[in-house]
């Protein structure tokens, strides 16, 4: 049986924030390159995995990149409505990362 740990235990930063008025971007930053590489290889933050976590379609992800200089995986999704429209309860997009914290990462 392979050991696994939660993303919140191994990532340095897990955050979300507006990227303009129509998108929210997520940054998951790791403390060292070995952790970064293991998470990348595990696929738990791949496009498909992110779609499963949030229950969204692939075309709702506008960008998904691995950003080596910052040891970060970054993806961006379209908002349902522009930020601050009535009914939007996260004007800054800053609390959308919650479901990422408990993602299990195998082999770390």
């Amino acid at each position, binding site marked *: 049986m392979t050991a696994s740990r939660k993303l919140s235990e191994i990532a*340095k*930063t897990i955050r979300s*924030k*507006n*990227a*303009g*008025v*129509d*998108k929210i*971007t997520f*940054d998951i*930053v790791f403390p060292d390159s070995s952790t970064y590489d293991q998470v990348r290889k595990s696929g738990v933050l791949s496009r498909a995995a992110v779609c499963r*976590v*949030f*229950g*969204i379609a692939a075309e709702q992800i*506008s*960008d998904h*990149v691995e*950003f080596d*200089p*910052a*040891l*970060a995986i*970054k993806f*961006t999704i*379209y908002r*349902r*409505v*522009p*930020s*601050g*429209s*009535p*009914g939007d*309860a*996260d*004007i*800054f997009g800053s*609390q*959308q990362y*919650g*479901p990422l914290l408990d993602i299990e990462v195998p082999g770390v």
Partner: protein
Amino acid sequence: MPVSIQHGRSANHTLRIVCPNGHLGFAPIKTGSFQIGCHCEPDLICADSGSCDVGPVPLGADISSSPLQWQVDDLETMLLASRRLGVPMIVGSAGDTGTNSRVDLFVGIIRDLANKHGLSRFRVGYFYSEVSKDALRRRIVDRDTVMGLDGRPPLDLATLDATERIVAVAGIHPYIKLLNEGAGVIIGGRSSDCAIFAAPAIRQGFPEDLAYFYGKVLECASFCAEPYGAKESVLGEITIDDVKVTALLPEQRCTIASVAGHAMYERANPFYEYFLGGHIDMSQCHYEQYDERTVRVTGPRYVPASELRVKLEGAGKIGERYVGIVGVRDPYTIANIDLVTAWARQQVVERFGDSGYELHFTIYGRNAILGDKEPLRAAPAHELGIVVQGVAPTKAMAEEVCMIATRQMFYARLPQVKGTAGGVAFLLDEVMRASPAYRWTLNHTMPVDDPLELFPTFIVEAGI
């Protein structure tokens, strides 16, 4: 005596800028690190004051998102240092939105402060960024496409008609013009964050490749440092070869991780930054630790645009808004909360029909923040807080929509409910008037022939 930074000026010709705040006026400048910055021989003091993060209400209603006194305090801190050191001060996107009224407000504050402190005469340069709806209407009629960003369709007349106010996002050009005209203080209308810092660097002949990146890295002040701590000052230095950024708060450092990490902050893609005139490509950036608190960056590239396109931001009013708040503790009611809100909505429909207003239920304790994206929406908490928003053309109707929906949750008819004396708990047996509801109607671009054509500049005198 504050501790100055460790490195002296580079041998090459340099330009140093202190940035004290990434959103001036939104939360106060921490003055300790700013005063350290003032001891580091800055050539300018620059800060951005704008943000779309505050939502569409400030632009639509033409207000600031923070108290006037906070704006006065931050401007006073910067102005007194700038005049004492004899270096220019630049503030971009005045008052959150960069509308004409916010520029006028900031210019007025600067002139009042100059009188209050008896400052010697200096020139205040400013520019406007608002675009009239008529100008855009002509563009649409002339089939000069106003293209949508981020998946939006081209601007149509209906969307334009539903818009209250529009600003265009300036590049470096009005800042350079005003510096050339001898402005000691510049108050900018809406502009790209990086332009505020890139403009003086480009004006003095530093490479555009580095200058735009210089602006990008400085614009959020201490967000490019670690440990996390906002509103602290940072110092930037540009040479013909590199950009350096130094954390000024003694407890903070700029590290490769913090500076590279900042490159991706609040942008869809960490490699590109777009502005009027082109974009920077940061994919080949090289970051190195220069000294304990300083990171040196080389390798960004400036890619000029083949066509000048200016970004437009617009907000339109949806209606007046009232808010109600209720709580639920009965587990059966919690399990059937959608039936409760459906009942309440139906009572509004019976009074007003099913259109001509908006009604929103935000269910805290279940999925308020993520909505349909909440993986745990089937496992609500043991109590729920529900915020009801009614939006309608008039205050009276908005109040009534909100009041019907809030009050009728109390009377919702659930077949098995044990508590028959009231289905919800009221925090207040009233609904509260909130800011009118607005939405972002424009997130678009349009072509311009001249990067200054939408941004008229002005010079006035201040001081005695």
